């Protein structure tokens, strides 16, 4: 499998916001390859394009130019619905702001992706409960987000991201709104998912402590990849 293509390949990706004189190029030609099973931390100063590239990788946003191949398929030429199905079946997201449905129980939030996948009710409930248990929230199924702490809300978001058993977990500053204690717990959870379930993880973080959990660190600067090196996983 030496000639096997990587899981993800970005080639010459640019992203320009706005048009004309006000146009701003947030990404200036990104080339990046990510293999299955990797745990990559994306770092870099604020405004360097980290979120922009994550959104493109997550098919939430489209590049202005360049090519994005996911499992050999060209994402940049896909329709909206095709990209939605890609998200549905292969991608899981964790956001800095959690993005849970308000006034909706943890269980129902976690169930949501399975409903769109047409999962029958019984297996859906079972899978959602199992996911909540895995993130350490057994017993919190019936709590709405406003009854949960920030760390717990992020756990619900992680449970929602992994309940579909995705290939890739994309996390944009997942610990950005959390204190150190909760941050470490979330990082343990994410690295466990990478280690035990083989989920490819791409994570944006500002904090070296959090990046230390990853085995590869990609640094961004002014919309370009500034450095890309592998490291030993933290003990």
């Amino acid at each position, binding site marked *: 499998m030496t000639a096997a293509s990587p899981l993800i390949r970005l080639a010459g990706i640019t992203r320009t916001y706005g048009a004309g004189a006000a146009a701003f190029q947030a990404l200036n030609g990104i080339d990046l390859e990510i293999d299955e099973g990797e745990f990559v931390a994306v770092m870099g100063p604020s405004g360097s394009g980290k979120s922009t590239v994550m959104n493109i990788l997550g098919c939430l946003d489209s590049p202005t130019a360049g090519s994005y191949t996911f499992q050999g398929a060209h994402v940049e030429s896909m329709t909206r619905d095709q990209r939605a199905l890609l*998200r549905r079946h292969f991608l899981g997201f964790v956001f800095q702001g959690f993005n849970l449905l308000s006034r909706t129980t943890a269980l129902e939030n976690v169930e949501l992706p399975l*409903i*769109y996948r047409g999962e029958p009710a019984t297996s859906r409930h079972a899978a959602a409960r199992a996911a909540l248990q895995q993130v350490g929230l057994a017993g919190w199924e019936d709590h709405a987000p406003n009854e949960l702490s920030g760390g717990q809300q992020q756990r619900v978001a992680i449970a929602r991201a992994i309940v579909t058993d995705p290939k890739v977990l994309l996390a944009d500053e997942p610990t950005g709104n959390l204190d150190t204690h909760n941050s470490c717990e979330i990082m343990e959870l994410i690295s466990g998912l990478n280690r035990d379930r083989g989920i490819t993880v791409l994570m944006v973080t500002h904090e070296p402590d959090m990046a230390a959990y990853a085995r590869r660190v990609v640094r961004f600067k002014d919309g370009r990849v500034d450095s890309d090196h592998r490291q030993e996983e933290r003990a």
Partner: protein
Amino acid sequence: MLWNTLLLAMRAIRRNLMRSFLTILGVVIGVAAVITMVTLGNGATRSVSAQIASMGSNLLMVRPGQRFGPGSEAAPNFKLADVEAVRSQIGAAVAVAPVVSSAVTAVNQSRNWSTVVTGSSNDYFSAGNWELTAGRSFSESEERAGKAVCVIGNTVRDKLFGQQSAVGAEIRIKQFACEVIGQLKSKGQSAMGSDQDDIVVMPLRTVQRRLSGSQDVNMIMVSAGSGASIDSIKAELERLLRERRKIGDNEEDNFRVMDTRQIAETLTGTTRILTMLLGAVAAVSLLVGGIGIMNIMLVSVTERTREIGIRLAIGALEREVLLQFLIEAVVLSSLGGVIGIALAAAASVVLSGVMNIAYVFDPSINLISFLFSAAIGVVFGYFPARRAAQLDPIEALRHE
């Protein structure tokens, strides 16, 4: 997909109970107000029409009078000969009845009642759409001889005899006793609000001899057949009476011909204006209800846009999101519409009872106001959602 989307829509309704409730409320108020107002208006029109019909159909009433200006003199009353002339010369007239009225006090033992005695013939009953509930009308000999017999209305019987039958009994009017030979079926209020059942009918000759003391006839009632043209009968009547009353070509009539259609037009015209007024008030409340719905939907658009962003991010298709919001809007609006219709039906029945008018169920206004409110609900629930669902997921998530 439909089943799952239905599930999502129901969950969305449940988690936004307040918003759902306010949406429903807006539709309920709009639907209920319009339907109630229009139903009451229709009921009032129907009641007035029914009252007019109870006066007798295609009825013309000829009275002396209406001659103004210098040299005017009191218009002479009609004579029985005029009535006979009308009867014989106007072929389209089905019934022609003379009327002499006299205010009296009727007495039965210790009970007495002030009423009006009408002297006429059996034609009076057919012209005025009267039916007998007991007894009989006048015989030919009674009419010819001017016997002291009478047919009484429901109110008179009630006041003088209570609930008992009056047929065969005698009532005293002025100095003579009069046998009650028949009772009339109740007609209720007239379109002008007077009690039509407060009536005593005697043969014309009886009243002329014993009460009015003259050969005059106060009014001639002419009932046209249902197919006949009121206008042509009216013209014939005017020509005939002008000739008989020797009115010169350039003189005005000294009598007046009125027909029930005229009265009906005046009165239904009034109720129609009233209905329109009520309808306008109701339309405003429908509009206010609609604006309420719009407001609630627009206020929640930020939250909904973020929600749509979340759904899209985890893999929902645009059409699934749209279908969910459409189902949500349709369910809420229909629920509101059904509650509104039920509320309107209850309110209309109660109010028409209180206001003493007919309850007329009008399917079209129920349908129209239901569809209109539902459309408002759907439009304002669905279109903001559609705009959001067309955004890139990341833009929807970023929405402030």
